[in-house]
């Protein structure tokens, strides 16, 4: 079963359209949503969570239509939003009690364990937390009610590199269970590169590509060579080319490049930036 299926999802705003988005997140996998500001990442997540109305298409979460089985499905979905969304006056203890009365499968012991792991002070008000601590509390809540799907909107932003690394490891651990999946959007593409099985590039409301991360890294590469040498490559091989007085570089399809031409690996971040520039 797929954790998430999005078919022809469309949402129109004045000046912006999320246009016929199609995504499939298989169970047990992590998909990263990458895109510049205003690309449609948060709109996609809001549509998945029914915060806004779609103009077309369908969303299926854990086998159920996102609108018909909304309440039942949300028992199985853990969410961390960019603005965590907990009331400022609440303490970690109070949040735990509220969630225990909200989720049927709330696991207080797991919540306490995660709060301890994140060094969250039990009786300090949310308003006195740093952004990183707020995110950590959001993550602790999302992972304490037996969720099978985590939806994370910029959940690693605001965390220092050490904690970010720890959180990324926790997400990896979460998906060791084949029934667990994650959809994560982030500006920090290096986190997604470390974490994700699938990468989806959004640009101006359109899906540029959605592919297995390893396949992307196998498929694309960078060539650094004199401009004349790059000009020998076929048009199909070159996705993006930049020339300067020190030489030239090109994003290429590895399969279309002659074997004698050295190709260096491309990072997901580079790939995304170059594709957006070319688009």
């Amino acid at each position, binding site marked *: 079963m797929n954790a998430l299926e999005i078919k022809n999802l469309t949402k129109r705003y004045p000046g912006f359209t999320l246009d016929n988005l199609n995504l499939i997140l298989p169970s047990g996998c992590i998909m990263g949503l990458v895109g510049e500001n205003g690309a449609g990442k948060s709109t996609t997540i809001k549509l998945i969570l029914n915060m806004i109305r779609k103009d077309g298409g369908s969303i299926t979460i854990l086998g159920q239509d996102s609108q018909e089985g909304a309440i039942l499905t949300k028992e199985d979905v853990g969410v961390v939003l960019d603005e965590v969304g907990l*009331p400022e006056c609440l303490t970690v203890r*109070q949040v735990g009690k509220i969630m225990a009365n*909200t989720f049927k499968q709330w696991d207080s012991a797991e919540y306490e364990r995660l709060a301890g792991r994140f060094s969250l002070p039990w009786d300090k008000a949310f308003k006195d937390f740093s952004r990183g601590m707020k995110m950590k509390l959001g993550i602790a809540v999302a992972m304490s009610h037996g969720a099978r799907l985590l939806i994370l909107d910029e959940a690693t932003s605001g965390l220092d590199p050490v904690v970010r690394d720890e959180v990324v490891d926790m997400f990896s651990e979460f998906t060791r269970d084949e029934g667990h999946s994650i959809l994560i959007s982030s500006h920090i593409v290096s986190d997604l590169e470390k974490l994700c099985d699938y990468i989806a590039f959004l640009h101006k409301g359109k899906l540029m590509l959605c592919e297995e991360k390893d396949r992307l890294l196998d498929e694309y590469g960078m060539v650094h060579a004199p401009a004349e040498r790059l000009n020998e490559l076929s048009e199909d091989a070159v996705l993006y080319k930049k020339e300067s007085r020190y030489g030239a570089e090109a994003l290429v399809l590895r399969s279309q490049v002659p074997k004698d031409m050295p190709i260096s690996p491309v990072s997901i971040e580079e790939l995304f930036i170059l594709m957006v520039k070319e688009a």
Partner: protein
Amino acid sequence: MKGLLLKDWYMMKSYCRSYLLIVTAFLAVSFMDDSNLFFAFYPCILCSMIPITLHSYDERSHWLQYSASLPCSRAQIVSAKYLIGLATSLVMFIVTGIAQVVRMRVSDAMEPGELIALMAVLLLLALLMPAITFPVIFKWGVEKGRIVYYVVIGVICAGGVIIAQLVDTDVEVSLPAGIAVPAICAAVVGLYAFSWYLSIVFFKNREL
């Protein structure tokens, strides 16, 4: 639903503590000056604003968006606020009622008719404002709700002045208490229920 109510309870404990002091002070003054009913009525008006205040904090903390990810319906989110409104109003209604009974007993001026009329006005004050303001808040947000709130206050004050002038000019405006009191109570409770329904409809269609 229980979680939503518990959250509002914690928020009330944190944000509305000062209300307790104000309510006590106003009720104490109403004891000493029984010619001015403002001091007796104001605590009820104040407490009727509690759910609106809580909603305002919810908006500021992005709780409304977050609550969309929780296993509760939009109708439950709306209902939690209406239930909090009913609970706070009920508490104030009882406290003010007891205070008025004590005041009448102490001053040896116990008049059941006056007490019942007073309680009807209290019910009106406690439920009217949230009943009018909440649908606006659930459709357009707290900022616009505040504008409506002040407009309603203005209309009530203007209405009060007009009624006072009519009374001065000896125009007969009163209904028999036996009809007026139940009519006011039924109307305001009906309005509250309709407002509840309207807010659910508005909030279900709102984009968060």
